[in-house]
């Protein structure tokens, strides 16, 4: 047992570090550190730069244009990205639908969709949740009725993030009514330009545009847009949800960025002539946060080691999701605290000097962080999963 990287890994690390030595604009820094997504055009630029280097899909197999990296290499890549204040890649195509397409899709679907995910020419969004189906996703009611060679979709999706940006949406819809609710659900790929789709913004408390209602009104798509087998979509959906937890494992590595955001703010701000970072009260709080980040990162390393050995990590993914959301909430709150009274100055009125440094992003990140314990399986649901799967309760 050891924590050392071998010589190949170290060489790889240097290579990645060199890549990240430039090309990451400073204007991204505060948003990235606060856990906020960059604007779509920035994410597209970043994705294409990675793709040009052959690194567009760190978790995919080589045959589909991925890197084929070992879990250790993935870890190194993300650590270096985090170190350089690079953003997390947009995950809904890359980590959510991409892997389902290359696992269950037809050759035609693979050829058509996968390359465009790598370049972000196609931007995918996830149409799962509905007004009546959140934690209880199996309660979904959107229907896909067979009509000749088409499916006709009707229903309402909720919280469809980035539907206003996306070119495609992957939808879970009912293709038949079965006794068991999880049956008769299919996964269908839909072009966002299809007539009958309507996107309506959901304003959120962080004042950032992420998410939408998506209305489907006689949306007609060819049957060839079905992914995998009809009625088996729930199983694929579960694969997705598990992967989504792994996404937060990757995101956990990026928490070191938040540590730096806090540290910089607390170094800059002086309280009674002393930098805040040197006051024992604040220094120990930051230490506590950093210690918890180290604990989580070591959990992530163990998770990746399991993956390398093909071992089942059980619900450790849920544990990581749970702790990551708690830490991103705690970290951004501490950052806001470091800014002191100036964090009350969110949006400038008129033509003053503009906001203080780190504003509004640090506070926007703190607000946004509240949703991390709700989406992708809420913290309560993660507890249920751990209780059931790990403890047999």
């Amino acid at each position, binding site marked *: 047992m050891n924590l050392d990287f071998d010589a190949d890994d170290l060489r790889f690390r240097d290579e990645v570090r060199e890549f990240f030595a430039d090309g990451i604009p400073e204007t991204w820094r505060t948003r990235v550190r606060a856990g906020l997504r960059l604007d779509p055009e920035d994410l597209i630029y970043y994705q294409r730069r990675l793709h040009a280097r052959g690194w567009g899909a760190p978790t995919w197999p080589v045959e589909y244009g991925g890197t084929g990296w070992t879990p250790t290499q993935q870890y190194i890549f993300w650590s270096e990205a985090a170190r350089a204040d690079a953003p997390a890649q947009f995950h809904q195509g890359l980590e959510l639908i991409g892997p389902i397409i290359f696992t269950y899709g037809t050759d035609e679907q693979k050829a058509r969709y996968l390359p465009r995910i790598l370049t972000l020419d196609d931007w995918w969004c996830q149409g799962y949740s509905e007004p009546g189906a959140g*934690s209880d996703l199996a309660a979904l009611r959107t229907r896909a009725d067979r009509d000749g060679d088409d499916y006709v979709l009707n229903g309402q999706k909720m919280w469809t993030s980035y539907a206003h940006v996306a070119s495609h949406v992957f939808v879970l819809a009912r293709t038949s009514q079965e006794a068991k609710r999880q049956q008769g659900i299919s996964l269908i790929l839909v072009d966002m330009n299809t007539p009958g789709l309507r996107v309506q913004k959901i304003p959120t408390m962080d004042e950032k545009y992420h998410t939408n209602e998506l209305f489907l009104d006689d949306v007609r798509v060819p049957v060839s847009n079905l992914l995998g087998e009809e009625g088996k979509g729930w199983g694929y959906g579960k694969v997705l949800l598990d992967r989504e937890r792994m996404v937060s494992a990757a995101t956990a590595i990026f928490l070191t960025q938040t540590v730096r955001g806090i540290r910089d703010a607390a170094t800059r701000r002086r*309280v*009674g002539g002393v930098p805040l970072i040197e006051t024992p*009260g604040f220094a120990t709080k930051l230490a506590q946060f950093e210690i918890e980040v180290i604990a989580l990162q070591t959990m992530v390393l163990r998770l990746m080691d399991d993956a390398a050995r093909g071992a089942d990590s059980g619900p450790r993914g849920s544990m990581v999701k749970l702790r990551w959301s708690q830490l991103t909430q705690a970290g951004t709150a501490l950052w806001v605290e470091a800014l002191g009274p100036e964090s*009350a*100055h969110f949006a400038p009125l*008129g033509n003053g000097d503009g906001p203080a440094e780190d504003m509004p992003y640090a506070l926007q990140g703190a*607000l946004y962080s509240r*949703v991390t314990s709700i989406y992708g399986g809420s913290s309560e649901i993660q507890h249920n999963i751990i209780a059931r799967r790990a403890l047999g309760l």
Partner: protein
Amino acid sequence: MDFAYSDEQQMLRDSVLRYGEEHWAAADRLKTLAAGPEMTKRRWAEMAELGWLMLPIAESDGGLGGSAADVMAVMEGVGRHLMAVPYVTSCVLVPALLEGSEAGAELLGEIGAGTAVAAAGFLEADSGYDLRHVTTRTVRHGEGWRLSGAKVHVEDGADADWFVVSARTAGADHESDGIGLFLIDRAAEGLAVDGSRAIDGHRHARLMLDDVAAIPVGDVEAATPVIEAAVDRAIAAQLAEAVGSMEAASEATLDHLRTRHQFGVAIGSFQVLQHRMVDMVVAGEEARSMAYHATLNLGRDPHTRTRAVSAGKVRVAESGVYVGQQAVQLHGGVGFSEELIVSHHLRRQMMLAQAFGNADHHRTRFARLGAGA
């Protein structure tokens, strides 16, 4: 001992609540805030007409001389209905700063009538939340005074007509002696007001003062005790506001637990959510108790008063943010939306938690005060 509101206070409380229901309905909040200061001004005029703006102002200053408990009765409703108005700053804090002063007499009349709004600025770039760390400089020109410096945060200052600011007349930057209070007209030459909106709809300011003409208030070398007592009154008022907001957020959440169904049952049937809901209500109880503790100690000696106010501030800040966060959490995705009122309660709680010093600042102040009497 008596923790009950008098009949009169109860009536006052009820009428503020009724007013809030009618004029600050949760369903209209976005529209109200979007309409900006004009709408707020209309609301302010209504509140003036109801006599609430002059309630905290001393009788000798032409106000109604309401007690701290009277103010509490008003503030519960302000919090419950998230009224984004400068009540605490203009009607509680500033009148306490100007009480009995010649300089402030006319302004206090206007504040009570709702024709002028005033805000107070103490904090500076290096001061943290310490009210005694004052570097804004003063120069005396015969009868007049001129101020230069910067105030980094003036609560509710963006739309104020007048500012009361602290400035140093003697001593070193951090000494408690040698601090004076000065009144500044918003239109004064050399004053730059940099306004910004907070996440809770309140509108604050930063002030840049460059040789600005200012009117001295009271003893210009000994204002610290006045400032600290006034800020403690403002804090106590905000504690009641926080309690009102917490209770409203808890009620909305309880309602949601009863009506939202997942997995074929009301989510309120999940034990983990029941227990969380109970913790929210316990936090509300604790916060209400602390609001009483702080408010009912306001009239005592400074040591007792500051201990009580800091204790209240710490506990209410923590409980308030907790309740706001859990209200959002238990609502699920909709809790995060602009549309639902719980997200507004969380934002207000986050801002209240740091107004006039965050929990760390007040824990430190409490610790430094030593043992209680």
